[in-house]
């Protein structure tokens, strides 16, 4: 294995060696290396296999655009596939594996796919695998899926931690190359709060690979480091630009530091933005241009100068731009033999002179047409003005021109513009407050980038309102040539000339797509999968558009580009989720008595965000046993229920009565002080929104309760009506859900419980009749007792200031001991209301009207309430409209189930039936399974069958009144 590390130079820290493993072998690199630079330093050139043909692949780039060198990091729950080795900061103990190969990277059985390439051309799968039989595809697909995909994902939960942050800055500068550094300096000097974001772990961008720019860079960094208004975020990729000038940032932890979070997602609200995102070099298209050892020329220069790695000794560089020469000179200076094939006929004489002095052999008007060698490049075939020739080599450089990294600038829909002179797309007209500077605009030299950055930084600060005087830009002191580069001639007809390395899309594939009519670049992308890899086509996009434009005979600008979508670089799903996972996924909402329930044997249940006691284990081993026992207990003695989750709204003001009278379908104008009333609210379309009770506490003060589920909706709705519809009403609404603990005491002994618990309050039937209110205090907190029944028993809702909720609960249980007061859960609560025929969520399903719920009489003589007009539409009055009924199981040993479909006894069991069972329970009183259902009003029979195909069950049921219990209400009124 070759040692490609140069004895000196580079920005690596040779005092800190770092051991790592790749495919099971140990290697050594230095702090400051990337995995890619360390692999190259160790002479590892074969690092992966391609997606479709499993061709051997090496490292092409030195950055985020890397299409080939994808590795899997870590293992178990920490397994992370498809990571570009060029973006992995080397750290001790790093373990990487190559992927998409079996049994080994060197010998991959699926490499045979390459032999069948003509069969596997673009879109081949649309033309076959269609038979025999309808499900044939499922068989083929099984194998295709296994072959596709790149690395393997983890099967275990990710054990690492992620964080999300919010941030704000007056000016955000994306990219810390020459333009970005200059922009940040100018903006900060102007007085703006500046945030400079850089994806690399070092600041400097292309300047890091420029030996002549090191002084400038050091000076700049020193100055920026001392500016108070400037913050730096390294290892941070701005991956998306969203509406509202919001940027999505992803920061990686410093692998050398002990960080609690692996990655941090920051949502950054920016005033002005400077995009100094640079450019990536464009590959050249020739046969076998994907062989390991074929690299971007600028990447070679980066490995050489930044990482002190000489990836080859005999180098051929294909050039369409002047930048290739810098790579050639630096290679030659480090002892490499360099041949430069410049596709241009005209070359800057100064460069030529320098080439001669450096010993670089330059061939003008010459193209590389083919690389040879299998697992590594051995030679290239060239075609020059004097005909074809061949050169042995172990490294090939590609300098096909530059592609501005304009992705972010177009995430909000700004269309890129084509610039003929540099054969590239640059950002289109940016909206106010956004600026682009440096190579992203096509700037060819560092000096030009700095000048643009300086201007953009000042302008962005000014746009954000900061215009203090700014010092002149500090320009780098070295010369660069910047002749326009040549438009690449694409070698149509040559085999295996790849345009998109990762997706294995060649020129042939593009030609085929065009032949078949997939001419739009969007069709091209979708048909060939071009640009759809993890690199999102950063190196392939322009070459592909050029190919299609050439095939169609249209100009580049007419061919256009595909839409750039966030994220600019892949972002872990877990990083965006941050800490909102597991039990933190959503906050918990706990009643004041929550801890008591948990400590006293309640099985808790999630109800929206709330936690509620489902049942108490003291009543039975499981819910089915317990809830029936709880029901019996409520009906025979007394039960205590935590109802703090009900929505509670204070309605105050001189016009509150008028307001409620409109809001509720049934009338509230006549409600007297000290009395409560059940009310139903409709939506504007006449469908029931919610139900609850409202109590008139004082002349201008009401206490409304809503269902647990609809509390927030009702609150907003009331505010809407007051703000928008009826601003003339002097009414104030405030949510007091958190203010009051609520508990209900129900059962024949409930009054005795209350009398014992609150001896100072008269709770006699006369003083506190059904729907009556008494007020008092409990341990310094306000106390409201409203006599309301959900269960059909005599029952009281007790509201006490939340701080005393637990105390009141325990007090009631203690004082109610003689009456055998025991707590019960929501399962029993739901069952008790079914026996009483009270409708709830399963019946109020967003499709039912008042009449459907059997409450048409409530509004018989009313108008002017919400939902009155549209509630009279023909569909709501149809004779087969489904209405709430009671159902009683008519077969012993069987039970009704929610979700069963109702049919007439003589009907075929198909279609949608006459209705359905909505809620069911076993009724200890009746000794049967009973339920509520919605049944067509024109159904005349008194018996239905409830069909439940999921359990192959058919149960006969009698249609009865929904009020199973105490139809005269003697229990609750007594």
């Amino acid at each position, binding site marked *: 294995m070759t040692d490609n590390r140069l004895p000196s130079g580079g920005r690596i820290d040779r005092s800190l060696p770092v051991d790592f493993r790749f495919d099971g072998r140990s290697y050594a690199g230095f702090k400051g290396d990337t995995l890619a630079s360390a692999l190259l330093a160790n002479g590892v050139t074969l690092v992966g296999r391609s997606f479709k043909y499993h061709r051997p692949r090496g490292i092409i780039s030195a950055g985020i655009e890397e299409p080939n060198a994808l590795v899997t990091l870590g293992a178990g729950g920490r397994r992370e596939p498809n990571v570009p080795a060029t973006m992995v900061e080397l750290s001790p103990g790093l373990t990487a594996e190559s992927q998409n190969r079996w049994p080994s990277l060197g010998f991959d059985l699926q490499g045979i796919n390459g032999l069948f390439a003509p069969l596997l051309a673009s879109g081949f799968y649309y033309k076959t695998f269609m038979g025999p039989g309808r499900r044939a595809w499922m068989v083929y697909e099984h194998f295709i899926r296994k072959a596709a995909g790149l690395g393997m994902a983890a099967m275990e939960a990710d054990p690492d931690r992620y964080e999300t942050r919010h941030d704000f800055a007056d000016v955000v500068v994306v990219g810390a190359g020459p333009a970005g550094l200059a922009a940040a300096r100018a903006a900060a000097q102007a007085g703006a709060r500046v945030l400079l974001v850089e994806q690399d772990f070092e600041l400097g961008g292309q300047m890091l690979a420029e030996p002549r720019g090191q002084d400038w860079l050091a000076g700049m960094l020193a100055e920026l480091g001392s500016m108070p208004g400037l913050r730096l975020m390294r290892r941070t990729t701005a991956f998306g630009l969203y509406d509202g000038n919001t940027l999505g940032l992803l920061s990686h932890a410093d692998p050398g530091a002990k960080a609690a979070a692996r990655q941090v997602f920051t949502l950054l609200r920016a005033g002005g933005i400077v995009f100094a995102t640079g450019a990536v070099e464009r590959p050249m298209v020739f046969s076998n241009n994907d062989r390991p050892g074929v690299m971007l020329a600028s990447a070679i220069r980066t490995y050489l100068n930044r990482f002190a790695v000489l990836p080859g000794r005999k180098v051929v560089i294909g050039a369409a731009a002047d930048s290739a020469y810098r790579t050639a000179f630096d290679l030659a200076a480090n002892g490499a033999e360099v041949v430069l094939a410049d596709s241009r006929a005209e070359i800057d004489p100064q460069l030529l002179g320098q080439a001669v002095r450096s010993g670089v052999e330059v061939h003008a008007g010459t193209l590389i047409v083919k690389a040879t060698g299998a697992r590594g490049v051995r030679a290239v075939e060239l075609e020059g003005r004097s005909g074809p020739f061949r050169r042995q080599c172990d490294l090939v450089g590609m300098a096909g021109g530059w592609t501005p990294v304009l992705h972010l600038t177009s995430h909000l829909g700004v269309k890129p513009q084509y610039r003929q002179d540099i054969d590239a797309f640059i950002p289109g007209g940016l909206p106010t407050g956004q600026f682009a500077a440096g190579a992203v605009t096509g700037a060819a030299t560092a000096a030009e980038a700095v000048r643009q950055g300086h201007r953009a930084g000042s302008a962005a600060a000014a746009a954000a309102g900061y215009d203090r005087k700014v010092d002149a830009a500090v320009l780098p002191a070295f010369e660069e040539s910047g002749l326009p580069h040549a438009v690449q001639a694409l070698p149509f007809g040559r085999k295996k000339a790849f345009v998109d390395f990762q997706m294995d899309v060649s020129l042939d594939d593009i030609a085929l797509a065009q032949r078949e009519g997939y001419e739009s670049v969007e069709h091209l992308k979708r048909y060939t999968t071009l640009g759809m890899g993890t690199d999102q086509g950063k190196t392939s996009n322009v070459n592909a558009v050029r190919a299609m434009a050439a095939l169609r005979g249209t100009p580049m600008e007419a061919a256009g580009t595909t839409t750039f979508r966030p*994220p600019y670089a892949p972002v872990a799903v877990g990083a965006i989720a941050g800490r909102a996972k597991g039990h933190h*996924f959503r906050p918990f909402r706990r009643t004041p008595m929550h801890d008591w329930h948990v400590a006293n044997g309640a099985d808790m249940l999630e109800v929206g965000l709330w936690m509620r006691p489902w049942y108490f284990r003291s009543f039975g081993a499981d819910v089915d046993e317990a809830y029936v026992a709880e029901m019996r207990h409520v009906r025979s003695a007394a039960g205590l229920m935590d109802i703090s989750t009900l929505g509670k709204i204070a309605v105050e003001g001189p016009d509150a009565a008028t307001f409620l009278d409109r809001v509720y379908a049934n009338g509230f104008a006549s409600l007297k002080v000290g009395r409560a009333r059940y009310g139903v609210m409709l939506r504007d379309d*006449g469908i029931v929104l919610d139900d609850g009770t409202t109590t008139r506490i004082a002349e201008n003060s009401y206490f409304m309760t809503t269902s647990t589920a609809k509390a927030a909706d009702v609150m907003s709705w009331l505010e809407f009506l007051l703000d928008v519809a009826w601003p003339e009403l002097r009414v104030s609404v405030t949510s007091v859900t958190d203010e009051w603990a609520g508990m209900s005491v129900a059962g024949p002994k409930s009054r005795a419980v209350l009398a014992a618990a609150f001896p100072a309050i008269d709770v006699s039937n006369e003083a506190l009749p059904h729907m009556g209110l008494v007020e008092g205090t409990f341990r310094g907190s306000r106390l409201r007792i409203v006599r309301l029944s959900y269960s059909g028993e005599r029952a009281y809702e007790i509201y006490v200031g939340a701080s005393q909720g637990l105390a009141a609960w325990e007090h009631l249980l203690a004082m109610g001991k003689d009456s055998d007061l025991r707590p019960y859960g929501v399962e029993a609560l739901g069952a008790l209301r079914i026996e009483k025929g009270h409708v709830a969520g399963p019946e109020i399903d967003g499709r039912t009207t008042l009449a459907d719920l059997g409450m048409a009489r409530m509004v018989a003589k009313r108008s002017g309430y919400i939902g009155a007009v549209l509630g009279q539409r023909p569909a709501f009055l149809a004779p087969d409209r489904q209405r709430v009924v009671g159902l009683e199981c008519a077969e012993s040993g069987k039970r009704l189930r929610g979700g069963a479909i109702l049919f007439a006894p003589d009907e075929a069991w198909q279609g949608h*039936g006459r209705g359905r069972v909505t809620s069911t329970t076993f009724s200890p009183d009746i000794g049967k399974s009973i339920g509520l259902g919605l049944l067509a009003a024109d159904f005349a029979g008194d018996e239905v069958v409830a069909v439940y195909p999921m359990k192959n069950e058919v149960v006969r049921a009698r249609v009865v009144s929904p009020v199973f219990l105490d139809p005269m209400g003697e229990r609750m009124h007594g």
Partner: protein
Amino acid sequence: MGSFSAFSLLRHAIGGNRHWQRHWRAASPKPSYDVIVVGGGGHGLATAFYLAENHGIRNVAVIEKGYIGGGNVGRNTTVIRSNYLLDGNTQFYEFSMKLWEGLSAALNFNVMFSQRGQIVTAHSADQMDAFSHRANIMRLNGIDAEILGRDEVRRLVPYLDFSDTARFPIHGAILQGRAGTARHDAVAWGYARAASGHGVDIIENCEVIDFLRKGDRIVGVETTRGRIGAERVGLAVAGHTSVLSRKAGLELPIESHVLQAFVTEPVKPLVDHVVAYGADHFYVSQSDKGGLVFGGNLDGYNSYAQRGNAGVLQEVCEAAVALMPNISRLRLLRHWGGIMDMTPDASPIISLTPVPGLYLNGGWCYGGFKATPASGWCFAHMLATGEVHPLTRGYGLDRFRTGHTLDEAGAGPFAWLQ
């Protein structure tokens, strides 16, 4: 146009793939057609195909302002299912499912319809009841459905969060085995190729600017490529239905909203089903290329921009990790938006209109992809006969006046909440 098969693939491969032809003809507009379908998306192309295939009407043009399949058919998460509750929806979507099952063969184009099954998790007893109700309705209508207990779900999809720290524990699930996914672009291309083969003109890069009228009647369209006459004009431009309808003087109960879709980097097979999270807005499947394709809720405000906001990105990723803690390290590759016609009951509109000569297909909300074949079938019937197809009787525009809405979720007349 030559038929596609393994043999043709081999024959062409030997010939260096140089003799494949365009999949659909590049047509220029004729002065007039029997029927013009505006919109070269899945629904419009399917309509054109069935006009020719079922009704023998071949003098048909599909007019597309951009490239075909560039709208929602090429932007959705490709889920196909027929698990609908309400009378009208159930039968329509099951009919569509049956058409899907024979679609590759009917089109001689592999649309990669893969019946991998859809699982929707349930997180409460009430939700289990609601799913049972749905499953019972499905079975009673001849549609496959199963209710799974927690352990059965765990056997099928062990990577979901079955731990003690799950915020909303999984109680069970509803499964439709015949549900699945298809290759969305291939649906547009397959219909285009088959329609073109029947003589239909597919006219791309041709935008409708206005309608041509004779008295009250619409008799064609004015386009960026000239005037084109037609006996009947059908709109199939979901997302932009309001914009075009206004030109015809039609007022609609439609709002345009954005729904985002997300795809991760490709990985080896991980998710074999379509899985949806019953406790929040998240659904996921894995494409044949290996990427996890997922989605969530609408962005929540009227929008004609085919991009989404960062808030929904966060919501969706949170739900993703809550349901599948193992995908936390997987990386999101792209996310984008599609514009939905949202209706006040989340059900579609295939309807005659008050404007003679104009027929409407729209309002597909976020469920249009799965409906593509049946929508095309029934809309073609309407355009051919002038009559409502029996399967779409519930989809008329008048239902909002009469109250016969089909509100599966019961969310009410609030497009952004549907």
